[in-house]
């Protein structure tokens, strides 16, 4: 087969999910959907593209406008593929769901689209799942979002993750207290976002009016420790925003203890996520072996105003590709999820019996595929093994058990998709 040009190839930044990966994505998103539902979050599905003005509302999070995929409708209006899920949900909340009782709890799962630099393997189509909690300000709502984020990572089976917690007001207040503003502040914040601590410290020493104020900036950027350590380090900073943020974080950490997730949360006071977009608490989730955050979120009280509804909101998104990669590394996805339990033999002339056997097996909850190519003997068995099946059922009602395929980690993972052997005799015909 000679495929000339780009036919048969994929553009950069997108990829296929073949059955094995698709099954895993479906499985994880199913666990997440169940969890979100159990916390009272209802799923919404929003369009893949919208008017450019809508997509660019709250543009702070989206980065550069040239990262958007843009095109025109028949009337010449500019459309863009959605670049995040929060913006469409803010639009819905401020418009179509405006009459509903507050707070709104909404969840989503789907791809967003951002042009990326040509670096190989960097996705332009990014699958996300997440929630938005709209219409509730205050620490309890923040704590719910962070606790649900931890619960979501746990629900996927991920081990050893940490959610780092910061606060926009803390960062802004430290800059105020350090007497740094304007262009210097913007440059320092850019270094803080990428955690270029060398450039940050150098810039801080240049910009701050006194060495103590430079030290304060550096202490903020490099802080790691518990709440007590944060109070010792920053409790005396004479700035109302800093003190308010510390107080909120303290209340939150106490609540998170009640949610049972305190061990999974750590303070990360230098955490800076797109500061012009978020307005309060911010958080990021990290997993071993994956360099980029698997989860990110925070409070964004300004976004809904862009759609004419002035409501506070907090939410987070899980990065599904990174999450799947982390789970894969941890051996949490060892079992094939894209297998059949049973292959039904279907030799020529016995189609009717074969279909009846398949129907009966499906009614018992098994996943069943009929061999439409009429294989027999060793050929049939090889096909059944290739599909990972546990049994071959024959049209005459007999069955052949196949040995379990080897598993990397039989104690863990997703064996729960493999059902018990069917009731009744398992008769080997060999």
């Amino acid at each position, binding site marked *: 087969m000679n495929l000339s040009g780009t036919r048969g190839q994929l553009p950069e930044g997108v990829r296929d999910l073949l059955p094995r990966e698709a099954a895993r994505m479906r499985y994880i998103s199913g666990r997440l959907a169940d969890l979100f539902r159990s916390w009272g979050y209802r799923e919404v599905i929003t369009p893949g593209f919208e008017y450019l003005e809508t997509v660019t509302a709250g543009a702070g999070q989206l980065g550069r406008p040239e990262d958007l995929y843009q095109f025109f409708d028949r009337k010449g209006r500019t459309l863009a593929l959605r670049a995040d899920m929060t913006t469409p949900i803010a639009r819905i909340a401020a418009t179509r769901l405006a009459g509903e009782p507050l707070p709104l709890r909404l969840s989503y799962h789907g791809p967003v689209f951002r042009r990326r630099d040509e670096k190989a393997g960097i996705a332009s189509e990014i699958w996300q799942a997440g929630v938005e909690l709209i219409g509730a300000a205050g620490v309890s709502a923040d704590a719910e979002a962070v606790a649900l984020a931890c619960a979501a990572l746990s629900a996927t089976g991920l081990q*050893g*993750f*940490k959610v*780092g917690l910061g606060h926009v007001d803390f960062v802004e207040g430290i800059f105020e207290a350090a007497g740094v503003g304007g262009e210097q502040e913007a440059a320092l914040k850019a270094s803080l976002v*990428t*955690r*270029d*601590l*060398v*450039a940050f410290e*150098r810039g801080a020493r240049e910009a701050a009016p006194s060495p103590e104020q430079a030290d304060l900036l550096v202490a903020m950027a490099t802080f*790691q420790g518990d709440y007590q350590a944060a109070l010792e380090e920053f409790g005396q900073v004479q700035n109302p925003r800093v003190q308010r943020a510390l107080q909120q974080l303290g209340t939150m950490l106490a609540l998170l203890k009640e949610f049972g997730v305190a061990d999974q949360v*750590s303070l*990360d006071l230098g955490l800076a996520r797109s500061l012009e977009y978020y307005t309060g608490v911010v958080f990021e989730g*990290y*997993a*071993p*072996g*994956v*360099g*980029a*955050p698997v989860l990110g979120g925070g409070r964004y009280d300004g976004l809904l105003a862009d759609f004419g509804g002035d409501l506070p909101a907090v939410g987070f998104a899980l990065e599904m590709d990174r999450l799947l990669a982390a789970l894969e590394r941890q051996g949490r996805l060892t079992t094939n999820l894209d297998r059949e339990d049973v292959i039904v033999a279907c030799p020529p002339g016995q189609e009717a019996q074969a279909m009846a056997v398949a129907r009966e097996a499906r009614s018992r909850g098994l996943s069943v595929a009929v061999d439409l190519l009429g294989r027999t003997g060793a050929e049939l068995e090889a096909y059944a093994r290739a599909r990972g099946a546990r049994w071959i059922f024959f049209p005459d009602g007999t069955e052949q058990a196949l040995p379990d395929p080897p598993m990397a980690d039989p104690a863990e993972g997703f064996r729960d998709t493999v059902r018990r052997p069917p009731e009744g005799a398992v008769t080997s015909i060999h």
Partner: protein
Amino acid sequence: MTDWLTFAIPKGRPYHDTVQLLRRAGAAGPELETESRSLLIDCPEQRIRFLIARDSDVPTYVEYGAADLGIVGKNVLMEGEPKVYELLDLGYSTCQFVLAAPAGSDPARLLDGSAARRVATKYPRMTEAYFRSRGVQVEIIYLHGSIEVAPKVGLADMIVDITETGRTLRENNLVVIERLWTSSMRLIANRASYRLKADRIQPLVRRLRELTASGGQGEAATQPACAGADQRNQ
């Protein structure tokens, strides 16, 4: 090995200084000093595994989490812009990025935009960013090495390269038109490890900070060791 750290360090010229610094910081054992062709060296006492890599590969190992920490020149970080945290300026292997041209050429004319100029470099991304910020249009010629020969053979009008002593430039009859940036070795961390292994990384960062702040690397830095600079004839 769950509480071990993996630390990627560059082979080649900065290796000696890197090892000296790590030894003084108590981050590495004598294992690192033994002559070995092994690219993975375990220091059981420190519970650190060292990964000896090409300097330009160090950020890749760290970005993807194959290494928790790394030491690499700022020049490599600037060109690759990897998504890693830059924690410390370790202060050794300092060198200059320079824009250079054959001796006797007129810098003002080279940069006045009157003709399309060609610039040879190993650092195309930074070079492009530099000229774009100056509003000068140039054609960038990407070479893997021996950049200084490019003007001689008519491949380019100028070069952007790193230099420590300027010797290679002089030997090739090139003069510095402009000093662009300074580079030195940096401590970098994987973004997840920075949080998840903070209890192991933070003490190490503190010790390295103390050593570099007190100029502790001074004696080791007697021999020029800027990665990739002034070693064209090797």
